[in-house]
């Protein structure tokens, strides 16, 4: 049994950056095609990161490197914990810790754009934190366990019982995957009011580490989306993969359709969505129980 968990964690460790990079490339390709452009090849993100790794790294201070490394390690750890079948709540707690490390990296630079990005990132965390915790609770209500290991052995897919949680989670994924209208803390385009926000003062290999950490993160998020569909029957895995593809496409679509909103709009809208969908769902589950 033990060895089984370790194999899963190692598989995630090796495969996640590949899948994450490809997803990122697909995202760019999708976006380009939606805008009527040819777009980069699908493995462009790998080229980019490779180039970053070979560039000279300039740093603003030495603590920055520490935080960025910590961010990558914690993100990878979180993902391993999830795919090895750990406790959902612990996964989300570890996740928010890794995010805090990234925010600290930006704070430590004292650059105005970095700090602005950091503040906005914190606000984004405040927006999605309730939902991530609720997802874990939702699974607990639906299947009676916080352990991912037990959840994948469910007899019926969780989505039947917790559709509201699914909607809420897909909604906060917009923030988590840094998609417009909620990409407040950083942007993919330099020439905007916050420059690159959170990552303005990162360069070279440090920036590459952040990119890689985000790939790991994307795979983890898709894994959680899949969790809503997985049951003990093997066919459910196909449904889960289809669901991930659909959700990922949807996020890209949203990214291209909506312009960025003000932070307070984001706070109000996300909390309202969480309360209405996940909150109502929770209430109904509790009554039925």
């Amino acid at each position, binding site marked *: 049994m033990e060895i089984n968990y370790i194999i899963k964690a190692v598989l995630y460790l090796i495969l996640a950056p590949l899948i994450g990079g490809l997803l990122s490339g697909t995202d760019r390709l999708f976006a380009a095609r939606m805008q009527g452009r040819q777009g980069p090849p699908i493995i462009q993100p790998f080229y980019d990161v490779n180039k970053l790794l070979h560039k000279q790294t300039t740093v603003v201070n030495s*603590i920055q490197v520490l935080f960025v490394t910590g961010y990558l390690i914690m993100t990878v750890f979180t993902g391993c914990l999830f795919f090895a079948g750990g406790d959902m709540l*612990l996964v989300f707690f570890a996740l928010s810790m890794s995010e805090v490390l990234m925010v600290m990296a930006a704070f430590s630079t*004292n650059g105005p754009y970095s700090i602005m990005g950091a503040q906005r990132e914190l606000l984004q965390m405040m927006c999605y934190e309730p939902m991530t915790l609720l997802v874990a609770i939702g699974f607990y209500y639906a299947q009676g366990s916080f352990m991912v290991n037990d959840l994948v052995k469910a007899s019926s897919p969780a989505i039947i019982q917790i559709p509201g949680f699914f909607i809420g989670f897909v909604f906060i994924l917009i923030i988590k995957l840094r998609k417009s209208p909620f990409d407040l803390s950083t942007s993919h385009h330099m020439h905007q009011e916050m420059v690159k926000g959170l990552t303005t003062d990162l360069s070279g290999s440090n920036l590459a580490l952040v990119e890689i950490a985000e790939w790991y993160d994307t795979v983890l998020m898709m894994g959680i989306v899949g969790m809503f569909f997985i049951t003990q029957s093997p066919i459910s895995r196909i449904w889960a993969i289809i669901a991930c593809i659909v959700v990922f496409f949807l996020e890209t679509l949203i990214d291209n359709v909506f312009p960025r909103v003000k932070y307070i709009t984001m706070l109000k809208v996300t909390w309202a969505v969480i309360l209405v969908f996940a909150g109502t769902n929770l209430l109904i589950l509790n009554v039925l129980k």
Partner: protein
Amino acid sequence: MTIPIIDVVNFLILFPFIMAVIIGLLKQTSRLRSAVIMIGGFTIMAAAIYVAVTVITSGDTSQFMYLENTHLPDKFVIAGEVFLMCLVCFLSIKYKKYYAILFSLAGTIPVLWMDLTGRVVEGNTHIRIDTFAAVMYLIVGIVGILICIYASGYMKDYHHHHKDVQDRSNYFLALMFVFLGAMFGLISSDSLGWIYFFWEITSVCSFLMIGYTRTQEAVDNSFRALWMNLLGGCGFAAGLMICNMGFGISNLSQVTDMGMKEAALIVPATLFAFAALTKSAQFPFSRWLLGAMVAPTPSSALLHSATMVKIGVYMLIRLSPLMKGTLTGVMITVIGGFTFFAASLLAITVSDGKKVLAYSTISNLGLITACAGTGTQEGVWAAVMLVLFHAVSKSLLFQTVGDIENCMHSRDIEDMHGLIIKLPRLAFIMIIGICGMFMAPFGMLVSKWAALKSFVDSGSVWLVLFLVFGSGSTLFYWAKWLGKICTVIHQSFELEDITPRSELVSIFPLTSLIIIMCFAFPWMSGHMIQPILDEAYHANIPDVIGGSDVIIMMIMVAMVFMIPIGSRFLSIGKNSKMTMSYVAGVNAGDDRHYIDSFGKERALYMSNWYMEDYFGEKKLLWPCIWVAAVLVAVMLIIVVGGAI
């Protein structure tokens, strides 16, 4: 040779009062006084640890019941109550705040009448030392004493900076020891009459400490604290009288034991819970705790971490089995959950370091209250854990803020910009303290996790929602503070760290305690909290946080400490080229100025977000108080009024 526990407990209750008298006599700040505090303090700490360890390792909690005939101490208690009442009356007249007299008389006179006319039930044990009391001994004995030692050094610096305040530091330090004595008395007592007496001592003591500087603001705030706590005291007195005269019960343990069978006992329990709400500064009674920060920092540290507010939650946890599944329980959890959420939003909007800490205390106490109110075993587990972790982290944070204020003459979070360069040692301690309050592998989060599980299991949907949204805002206000500290500013220099050694004697142990408790929590759960649950519920419960999770938590803790150590020895980033941060102009070199397109040098400053327009005190505080006041009123009217 073994010393009987009862003797040590008597020593613990009485010796702090003797210490107070000695310190009161030593008017001048001197080496002698510091030495007296140090030696006396450590003696008390050793005694408290001795009692706690004996009780916890004995495994049998039924043997620690004492004192059946207590004529002499009872007379003392009566005399003490009269003295407190006279003191309050005198000060109220002196400062023309006559309403306080009303609350004091209303709380004391009926109880006196009952005592003197012999309507009190006699012949019960008066002292009970069980595991929960032992855990509280550890908190008061270790954290409380460390704060007193810290205070001996702090008060000197305080009067050095505040020449306008009359130096009455002997009086202040003496009060702190009185406070500790009352705390020991309260947690050892089983007799409701005695608990009430110690309860009133802490109310009056906190009032005197808050008013220490005698400025108008201090006087106003101290009277606010007084009337709110005396109001709670009236509730307690009413509960005490109903127990004695209505049910023939004079002990807290009987209330909790019989409450399971007799439903009518919920009436006094509700009144005690009401009193507990005022003590632990839940909405609508939060304003006294916010006002308490006008006093010198050690008093805040004492009120917020080891004493005062912990009494409230101590009572609630004691009453917890009674409240399970009752309307009182539901209302207490709702008030607690609401307070947790509302106070965490309010904490976002303030920039005064002590005020953020105050709101965070209120918020965390709300969580403890909510846990206790569910009445489930997991709820009590989480509540006790929260009490422990909160006491250590919060006292450390208050002490650090006090030291930073002494070094930089400001405790505003905005002024802590770049603290890691200015005062590296204090900044590092503060980072550990803040992480202890909200970050993943540290203690508070473990308890929050258990709280979440207990809310889910008890089916309290509203609480789950309060908790998850409150966690979001809690994360926001702590992380932005952490960010301010971690900012590295170029061409900024280390300030002189004038923290005296006596303060470090307190700060270092607390810092290590936070770290040790991260590793020790499975042990604490098994040896300290499990027995409490056995006592309260007479049943065993499975581990709240399971085995594999504990291992993963340990790995996380280890990783957190490995990251900085690893980076020191590996050459990550050491070879990188240094540059200045990007400011969309030319960085003038110190990160605080840039050269604009006209070639002028301009100042640059990034403030934290406070979002006052949305969650500001002006907008949110009073509505929250009213909502909570309605909740409290509904609880009292339905439960107490319904019984009449």
